[in-house]
Structures are given as structure tokens and as C-alpha cells.
């Protein structure tokens, strides 16, 4: 599929205020608004769930239906301040619970400590829902244990619990304790979760995701009802407006299809309760990375999708490690190459070259150049419009690079590290070295029952671009960069690793099967 062709890509909606708020709008135009590196894979998934639930709430039958890139699709999330106050701003509860057995007294004491929290919620409703204060405290304690690890932020408003169901889903927030207002915090939900939702809904079989997620959003689900018990009556109000300014340029894209295919495969295993999340999360983040890399490669003029040469960590420095480092670094540079290519292409456009050659005054040339650059890239110089075109382009490139440094340029390294795909273990450079957890997720996702090992390797390459063995390496690398023996050893290490995790069965003549321990056929 040539996703770059006319008609598949659409500009951002003209009504969107996002471009106007950006210093420059190129990486967004190419990849979307926005891919945010500081979002962890779980935050990505949480944001995704919030968005999916919002659309499900609006109309269950059109959840996961594809929506055009050039329109805005507003929706509402929830802040659920009452629940969050109980979970995270509730310091006295344990002390009060341990202090006595007098439930009445405990309630009274506790309610006093909660005065004014949760933007003025009256927590008295809890008294009627629990037979004793102790029970209430126990449940809160249990739920708190499922708080997701969030490396960066310890603010109580940045804490999220495990998404048991719709009542446990809430948007990121910043409280202003002084004036009691609450607003969105774009650090945790950086829009990439919404991008993930868009990817899934535009995937070829996206509509099939409706049913499994609808089950998850059913408020009658037992664990969800537990959370609902704690929730304040106002918590259900969808009070967090989203204008729908998130933007994903492509209507169709092979990465979208692969994402949906993988998620459906995971659901098909019928894992109990929400165990599937442990696999949906890393796979989701992986496909966001692959989407960005694949798009960047195409924009940079590469003929083939990027390969990711993976090392199974060897006891000492091996040839594959070198190749893997190079592969990682090459991929890491793809987005910047794509941005450069976009600016290069602009510079070659007839209108621009004509402007450079035109017989006009310098001032007018600068003016018109500034117009063109602003119209195409939304870039305006702070100093005004006097810059010569050549310098203007140079400044543009610099601005793009700086923004890329902290934005789209970090997505690959950040996500790959967090899902266990990349690490610097055993060396001082980052490279692709999938950990056990990710390997297991890949097996569970790609092997429905049992798959011959060589086929498994071929599938990993075809589906994700992952290179482990000599056959795929030969296809992916230049002959000068290829050492069959080293990749054979790498493949053997992968085989041994999978066997030690109980995921591989060996037969004679070097034939082995990868086995999914959760396949529904026993």
C-alpha cells in the first residue's frame, strides 16, 4: 500500500487551533499531532481507553468506526475527582481505620478530613454503601495497590489505577488547590493515546474491536462495580471536554492494519478478565513506533520498511550486537531525515525556485518567502519578516530540529526502551535486544497454536521488521554487512531462550515448534 499517495493523506482540519499554537507544523503534518515521547506505554493505553470509552458512550455502534483526518471529532472524558480524592488525597483513612472499631465515629472523623477535597464533593454517600468503615478502608487499600507505576510524576493528580472498567477510567488532570479548579495535564495524556485509537479505528478490521472493548466498558462487570461503589455521584459527569484536535494524517496505513490484527489475536485467546492488557499495552506502543518508522522511511525515500536487527544478548561482544546498534541508530535518525526531506522537497518546488530567481527587491522576496513558509509550515520568525529566503530556510530547519529533539525524535527511543525492545544492557549503546517479557508477548500474539520456528522468524520479520536469524538478515542487510554464522548463533540463542520459557518444542533434524501456552486448542 502506498499510504503517501494523494487522497490517502489529508490536511489537518482548518477549524483546528493546534497548528496555530505550534511554532512550526511539519512533524505533525507528517506523523500526526502528536506523538509524545513522555507518555509511557500504559499511559498511552489509558488515554486510548478513555477515548474509546467516550466514543462508545456517544454511540456504541460507531465506536472504532474510522473518522476522517480532516475533520475534528470532539468527545468528552471524565475527571472523576471524587474517586481520585478518595484514592489519592486521602491520608487520614488508614489511621482512622486502625484507631478504633466505632464505625460511626470513624465516618464522622474521616468525613471531616475530606472537607473541601475533590472540588467540594460531599463524601457522605459512602456511609450508605459500606456496612462498616473498615470495609471501606480495605477496599480503598486494595484498589490503591493497583496504582500504575509512573516514573515521572508523583502528584496525586497524576496517579492512575488499573483500568478495571469504565468507572476506573479518568482523564489526566492538574488541580489548582488554591482556586479549586481542575484542568487537563498534557504530560500524561499527550494525545498519542488518541492517535492509537485513530490507528485502531482506521485499521482494516477495526470494527471487530468494538465487541471486545464493549465488554470491557460494561458497567455491570464485577470489578467495575467495586470501583463504582467508591465513585461519587458526580464522577460520572463527562466534564472533560476534548475539542478533537488530535490529528492523524493517513486514512489507511499498513501499520494500522497490523495493530488491529495483533489486538484481535490477543483477544481471541480468551485470557481471563483483563490479563490481555499485559499484552495489548506493549503491542500498542510497538505499533506506534513502527508506524512512525515506516512512515518516516517512506518519506525519506527509502524503498523498504525499516528492519530492526535484534540481538539475543550474548555473553560477549558479537557481530550481531554491532549490527543491532547500527540498526537502532539508523532507525533513530529516520524521522529527522523525513523532516529534512520534506523541507528539501519544498525547496525544489517550482513556486519557491521561481521566487528565488524573480526580479524583485530583497524586501519583497523575504516577504513572499515568509508568506510561503508560513502558509505551508506555519512557521513565523520571531524577529519579523526581514530574513532572506536562504536564511529563513536555515532557521526553519533549526526550529524543526529543536522541536524534533524533544518531540517526535524521542518517540522511538523512549517507547522501544519501555516495552523492552531496546536496551543498553551489557554495552554502553542502545540497541535492539528484546527482553523475555516482550518475547513472550510476541509469541502469544503471533502464534495462534503452534508454528514452526523458521516460520515464526519469517513472520516476525514480515510483520514487524524484526531480524533474528540468518535468513532474515540476508534479506534485510547489505551483503557486506552480513555474517551468516553470527546470525545463526543469534538464532540459536533465541531458540534456547524460548525453550527455557516453555515456549518451544524441539524435534529432530533441527526442527522446532514455537508453542502458545494459552492457545484455546489443547
Amino acid at each position: 500500500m502506498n499510504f503517501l499517495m494523494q487522497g490517502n493523506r489529508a490536511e489537518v482540519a482548518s477549524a483546528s487551533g493546534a497548528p496555530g499554537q505550534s511554532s512550526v507544523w511539519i512533524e505533525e503534518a507528517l506523523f500526526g499531532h502528536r506523538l509524545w515521547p513522555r507518555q509511557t506505554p500504559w499511559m498511552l493505553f489509558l488515554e486510548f481507553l478513555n477515548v474509546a470509552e467516550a466514543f462508545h458512550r456517544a454511540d456504541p455502534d460507531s465506536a472504532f468506526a474510522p473518522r476522517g483526518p480532516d475533520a475534528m471529532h470532539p468527545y468528552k472524558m471524565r475527571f472523576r475527582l471524587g474517586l481520585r480524592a478518595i484514592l489519592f488525597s486521602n491520608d487520614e483513612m488508614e489511621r482512622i481505620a486502625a484507631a478504633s472499631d466505632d464505625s460511626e465515629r470513624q465516618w464522622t472523623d474521616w468525613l471531616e478530613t475530606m472537607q473541601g477535597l475533590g472540588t467540594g464533593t460531599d463524601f457522605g454517600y459512602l456511609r450508605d454503601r459500606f456496612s462498616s468503615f473498615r470495609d471501606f478502608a480495605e477496599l480503598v487499600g486494595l484498589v490503591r495497590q493497583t496504582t500504575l507505576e509512573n516514573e515521572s510524576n508523583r502528584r496525586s493528580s497524576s496517579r492512575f489505577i488499573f483500568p478495571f472498567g469504565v468507572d476506573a477510567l479518568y482523564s489526566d488532570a492538574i488541580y489548582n488547590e488554591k482556586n479549586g479548579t481542575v484542568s487537563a495535564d498534557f504530560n500524561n495524556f499527550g494525545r498519542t493515546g488518541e492517535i492509537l485509537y485513530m490507528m485502531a479505528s482506521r485499521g482494516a478490521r477495526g470494527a471487530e474491536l468494538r465487541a471486545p472493548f464493549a465488554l470491557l466498558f460494561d458497567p455491570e462487570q464485577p470489578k467495575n462495580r467495586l470501583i463504582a461503589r467508591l465513585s461519587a455521584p458526580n464522577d460520572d459527569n463527562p466534564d472533560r471536554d476534548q475539542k478533537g484536535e488530535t490529528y492523524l494524517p493517513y486514512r489507511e496505513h499498513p501499520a494500522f492494519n497490523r495493530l488491529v490484527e495483533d489486538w484481535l489475536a490477543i483477544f481471541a485467546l480468551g485470557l481471563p478478565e483483563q490479563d490481555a492488557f499485559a499484552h495489548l499495552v506493549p503491542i500498542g506502543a510497538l505499533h506506534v513506533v513502527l508506524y512512525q518508522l515506516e512512515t518516516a522511511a517512506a518519506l525519506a525515500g527509502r524503498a523498504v520498511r525499516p528492519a530492526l536487527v535484534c540481538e539475543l544478548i550474548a555473553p560477549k561482544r558479537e557481530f550481531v550486537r554491532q549490527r543491532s546498534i547500527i540498526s537502532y541508530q539508523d532507525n533513530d535518525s529516520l524521522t529527522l531525515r523525513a523532516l529534512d526531506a520534506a523541507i528539501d522537497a519544498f525547496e525544489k518546488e517550482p513556486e519557491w525556485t521561481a521566487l528565488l530567481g524573480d526580479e524583485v527587491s530583497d524586501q519583497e522576496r523575504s516577504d513572499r518567502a515568509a508568506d510561503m513558509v508560513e502558509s505551508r509550515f506555519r512557521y513565523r520568525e520571531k524577529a519579523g519578516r526581514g530574513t532572506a529566503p536562504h536564511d529563513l530556510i536555515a532557521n526553519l530547519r533549526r526550529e524543526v530540529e529543536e522541536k524534533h529533539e524533544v518531540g517526535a525524535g524521542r518517540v522511538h527511543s523512549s517507547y522501544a526502551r519501555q516495552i523492552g525492545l531496546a536496551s543498553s544492557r551489557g554495552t554502553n549503546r542502545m540497541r535492539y535486544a528484546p527482553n523475555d517479557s516482550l518475547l513472550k508477548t510476541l509469541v502469544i500474539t503471533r502464534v495462534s497454536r503452534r508454528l514452526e520456528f523458521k516460520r515464526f522468524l519469517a513472520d516476525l520479520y514480515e510483520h514487524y521488521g524484526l531480524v533474528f536469524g540468518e535468513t532474515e538478515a540476508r534479506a534485510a542487510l547489505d551483503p557486506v554487512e552480513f555474517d551468516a554464522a553470527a546470525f545463526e548463533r543469534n538464532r540459536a540463542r533465541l531458540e534456547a531462550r524460548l525453550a527455557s520459557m516453555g515456549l518451544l518444542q524441539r524435534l529432530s533434524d533441527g526442527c522446532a515448534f514455537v508453542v502458545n501456552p494459552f492457545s484455546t486448542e489443547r
Partner: protein
Amino acid sequence: MSSPASGHATPGERWISFLRSYGPINKSDGMFAETVSRQAKAHGVAQLAFEHPETATLTESIDPGEGRLTNVILTGTAGDGKTSLCNALWHRLTGDDSRQTGQNRDNYGRVQLATSVGERTLHFIFEFSGFTPEQGQRWTAEQVDLLDRFARSVLDPDPVEYFVVAANDGKLVQAFDSLPDTADLRLKPIIETMLTRDQRSHEGAALQFLNLSRMATSDLFERALSCLVGRPEWICFEDEADDPAFGAQSPLYKNFQLLQEPRIRQRLHALAELCDSNGFHVSIREILLLLINGLLGYKGGDGVMRADVLRELVCDGRQHDACLYDNLLGANLSEARRERFAVFRFLTGFRIGLETSNALDALLVFGQDDADLQPHHRRLLADDPHYGVNPGFARLRDAYLEAEEDRSAVDEFHAGLIAERRRLFFRLTDDDLRFDAWQLSVFQSAGAYRAQLLGALRDGRPVDPALISRLVQGFNRVWTGMLAGGLDKLYLTTGLDFTTARVSDLYLNAVPLELDFNGSGISLSFDEDRHVPILHVHLRQGEDTALPLTLMRFEFLMRVAHGALPSSFSKECYEDIISFKTRVLSDFYRINAGRSVPLSILTTGADGGFATRQLGLRL
């Protein structure tokens, strides 16, 4: 290598020279059958042969006189006797023994058989890889045609031709996997199912599927050993007793006598049985290799003795270098060579001699001098008529005990101690009340595994409830993540988020140890085909989730039950046990769909047992 020209060697020398070809000397795998038959002819002795366990099955399946004719696939790893079985069948049906003598080595043969419904053709494919393309090569029309005909014979009614096919299991899979779309693909899923589910036949298919790697190692071992020690050529010990190579001082003689001692045989049989229980299959070829290495192995040269080496060792008094106990574990070979053979990889995995207990080491090191241990030392070690007290070890021991600052003595002493532990391992018997041989291996609970689990299941006796209790305790600790007691019920718990949460303290259900009137409980059975006990968790009547209880998993659960952390011993076992939990819980949720259970937290009581505390809420 050259052996003395047959004309000049004594029968005994020829016998040893011939036996060497079964040992771990350099040879390429694919040529083994040819090498052995060539060697047999050159030495004028018959090959080592015993009745193959699957001979009876073949005799029954293919008996044209009685109107029984079907297709047969013989599969397994190299060295399981596929070719021999085919050759024997060929001989039985045609009277032609040219295959068995090695004269005829064609990949293909055909015989016309008269049956009650007319003449039928039986094709023999002696080596399947000769009829399929190499990895990555294209299929020729002929090759595809043969497999099409095979499929028709198996699946369509009234076949006029039948096939007997010998194929390595890997090759079988690769071939059917790579069949082009134009071929008859009906057989492929059937073969894959039969292979992975260990089925010997399939509904609607005229096919006998014999996977020889499913043969019990213990059964093969018994047959091989009986065959070997029963050979008439051992008369050389009488006829040539003057030759030091065959006299009473010869390590070969000692090893031969030891191999027949009941306690050694039993210990070896136990090891073979435990290999089966761990899912390790040892091929016939490698069993013979193990036995020959046991008899003729020595530390030096190429690792396998010739007659002249035997004489040398006797002369120098270095019989201990060829000691059976070390040979059986491949200690006479370099590590690289040992690693090449599956049987030694498995046995090395037992880590015999590398594990120990204080009591056992005390016996070895101080037993000779200690009043309490002396009688045991004598009956177990000193009285060994063949390899009695090892003077080398005595010297090392003294050096170690007397050395004050010198650390160099330690390593040598340690190596010597390992050898002594191995000797003790083979000399202890199962009913020894004071010492447990399995403590010298990594599978400390192997004794209980064999006696209380394997033994009970085979005899049809109920398994000791105390053993089941311990297993359940192991499960409880891994599944709940809590290091508490819980011997009387199997607890199904979950975390609030993941069912596989490391600490799962939300109580869902408890399964009793014995089947109750709801059909809920734990039971054990024995899988005859895979030679492994199976543990069943029944949630209700008529349903259960099963876990093959390999020795490895058993050991893991026992260790956890006794206090080891679940993350120790074996990561693979930990993953297996957690996967089993997911399967059991999947069943639980499926059965309980739509029902709510009271929310209870599992805690540890003061007595170390589990207690549940209800929260007055429902889940």
C-alpha cells in the same frame, strides 16, 4: 583407526574392538547403521540386537495373510531403530535378508502382496529424506506425486497400494509444511495432530503412526542391557582369563560384573525412568553408547579402551581410571564430546555428585575413621570388591585435611570427592534407611517421586495424601505469592488487576484435595504414552485442567513447599506453573460466568495457615 587384522586377534579382542564401534568415538550420525554392520562383518560377530518394542505392533498391523494391511509411518529421532524395523519387516514379507546384512541400501523397495481381496503393492520408503526436497528447494513432480498417492492410500477407500515410511520427525514436519498448494494437502493436519498429540491412529485414516521417540527409555534400557550382558562372547572372561585384559583385575571384568549387580541395574533403571518423566527420550543408539562407554570408558586416549589399554591399566594399577561409576556419567570424556550426546546431556543435568548433604559427605570423608559411620562406609564403599577404597582419594583427603594454608589441594580433593559421591550414588540402594542417594543429585525429591508417585500410580494404589498436600502447598505458594501454609486446599486467587499478579490475595475458590460430591478436587493419573504422571484440578463434575507432573516440576513444587522462593531453581517451571494457573482460572471464570462471589481477602493466620476475611462486598 585400525584394529588388529581379524586373523590374528583373539575372540575377546575382536569382541572388544567390535563393541567400540557403539561407543562415543568419532563417527558421523548418518552412517551409524552402515558402520555397525560393516564392523560386525569385519569382526565376525553379530550385531547387538534385541526385540524392538514396536515389533509386535508392526507384526499385527501388517499381516497380509490375515488380511491386515495398512500404511505405516515410523518416525522419531535418529537412532531409534526405524531402519532396523523396516528391514525386519522387509525380511518378514520377502524372505530377503539383503537389507539386514547391509548389502542392499536402497532408499526404496516394493513388494507385491497377495491378499484376500486381490494383489496389493506395498512400497517401502526406507529414508524419507531421499524423496523430499532439501530445505528451500522446490518439489519435483515426482516427489509431489508420491505424497499424493500416499495421501490417497491413507484417506480414500479401497487403496491398491500401501506405504511404509521411515522419517525423522523433523524431516516429516518440514516436508509436509513445504508441500506446494497443488499437492494433496489432506494429510498435513492429520500428521501434525498425531505428532503433537502423540496419537498412534486417527479416525478415518488408514495409518499406523509410530513415533519411536515415545518409547519408554526405561524399557529400551532393560532390553539393551539384557541383550548386552547375555552375549555369548563374554565367555572370553573364562577362555582368556590369563590375559590381563580379561582377568579378574581387568576393569572390563569389574565393570561387567558391576553392570549385572542388582543395585546398579536398579539405579540405572531409575535414571532411565526419570528421564522419561522429564520428557527426555534417549534413542536406542545412545543407550547402547551409554552402556559401552560404561564398560569400556577410561580417562585418556580417545576415551574408549582397546585390549592393549586394558592391559596397560592393569599393569599400572590404574583400574580406577576406567571405573564404571564415572563412565556412566560420561566423566571419561571431554566436556565438548559429552555435550554432543543427548544421553550425557540429560545425565549431566541430574548433577550427580555435584549436590550432596552433610551426612553423605561426612560418610565419604570421615566414614573410614568414625565409629558410627564405619559400618556404613564398609558396606557401601570399602567392601566393594571391584573398586574398593580408592587409594587416590585417600591421599587427596589426607592432603586436604592436613593442609593448613595451601589451597591447591582443595580443587583436587573436590574433584576426587565428586567421583566418590558418584560411586556412592550407584552403591546406595532404594531401601537404605539412613542415606538417600537422590540427595547426591539436583532432584532431591526423586526418591519420593518414584516411590510415592510413579510406584503408586503404576500399581493402581492411591497416592499418599501427604504427598498431594505438599504439592498443593507448592502450588499455593506460587499462585498466591504468599509464603504461608495451606496444606489442605488448593487456593484459587487473583490479584485485583491481573490474575497472574505476583501477590494474588483475592480469594475466589478453594479446591479440596480429595474429590468431593460436587466433583471438585485433585486427582492424579498416569499417561502411559508419555510416561509421566498427570495432575488434574477438577472444578466440577466432568471437567478438569491437567498438568503433566514432570520430575522437574515436581522438584520445583517440593522445594517451594519447603520454603524455597518461587523464583529459584527453575524459571521455566515457574512459568509453567503460572500458565497452569491461568488455565485453571480461565475455567473458573467460564464456569462462573454471570455469578458473583463475595469479595474475600486471603491472609496468613498466626499459625501460618491461610484465613479468609470477607469484605461484605461482592465481586
